């Protein structure tokens, strides 16, 4: 009689021999892959962001409320910033998660630090998304346009 011993990485290992308890599934592998895929896209998004905001025309002197209004009037830049926000935040959060796992040796400390990390990430992603989609180039308070806005005459 011959017993078949599956290769350890075949994914066909009997449940009692799996090291991750089965519940985490492929999460770490997906996270590893995500770091690489998001990294490639982020190079384009961030280099483009820095080039358009700092290198072109008057560079940093040109940045003010009107500059942002001009960019976000165009769905192209809205989408650009949205993708950059989500990818950079998820990539950065996952990176910092790895670092916490590396250095925080006590289970309690680790859990606590990661709770703070995830809470901060959710708040920043939601805030940034809300800002892009609810941006108003001509904010009005009590019927009076705020100074510096971009109001139709």
């Amino acid at each position, binding site marked *: 009689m011959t017993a078949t011993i599956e290769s350890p990485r075949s994914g066909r290992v009997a449940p009692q021999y799996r090291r991750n308890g089965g519940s985490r599934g492929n999460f770490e592998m997906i996270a590893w892959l995500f770091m690489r895929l998001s990294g490639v896209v982020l190079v384009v998004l961030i280099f483009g962001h820095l080039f358009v905001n*700092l290198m072109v025309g008057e560079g940093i002197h040109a940045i003010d409320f009107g500059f942002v209004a001009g960019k976000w009037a165009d769905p192209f830049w809205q989408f650009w910033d949205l993708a950059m926000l989500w990818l950079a935040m998820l990539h950065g959060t996952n990176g910092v998660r790895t670092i916490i796992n590396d250095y925080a040796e006590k289970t309690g400390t680790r859990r606590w630090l990661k709770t703070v990390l995830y809470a*901060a990430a959710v708040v920043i992603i939601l805030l940034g998304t809300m800002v892009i989609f609810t941006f108003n180039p001509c*904010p009005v308070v009590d019927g009076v346009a705020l100074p510096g806005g971009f109001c139709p005459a």
Partner: protein
Amino acid sequence: MPTKPAGTLYRGREGMWSWVGHRITGVVIFFFLLVHVLDTSLVRVSPEAYTAVIGAYKNPLMALGETGLVAAIVFHAFNGLRIIAVDFWKKGAKYQRQMLWAVLALWIVTILAFSIRHLSLALGGH
């Protein structure tokens, strides 16, 4: 105390230091990004609030800070592409050291070009 290991391929060599640099720059960029989304969110408060906070980015000292930030990002980006090449390219592991020198060379060229343009805009009167 552990004794000093002899002849390791990784510890104390290029591979380890590029990892240290990658880790530190990653954390720096992450914390910058948290603050950056907060300062950008002031466009929802009022045009003047946003213009005031952005004004802080325009002083000469901040110009140096921005250059440092961009140096961190460009290193992380180029070295990140090197890590990806090590993982996915057949010969990546073999050439990891040469790729690190390429990363550093490209990094210096990019930062020189960026600094010349950014600092002359930011410091060069207006």
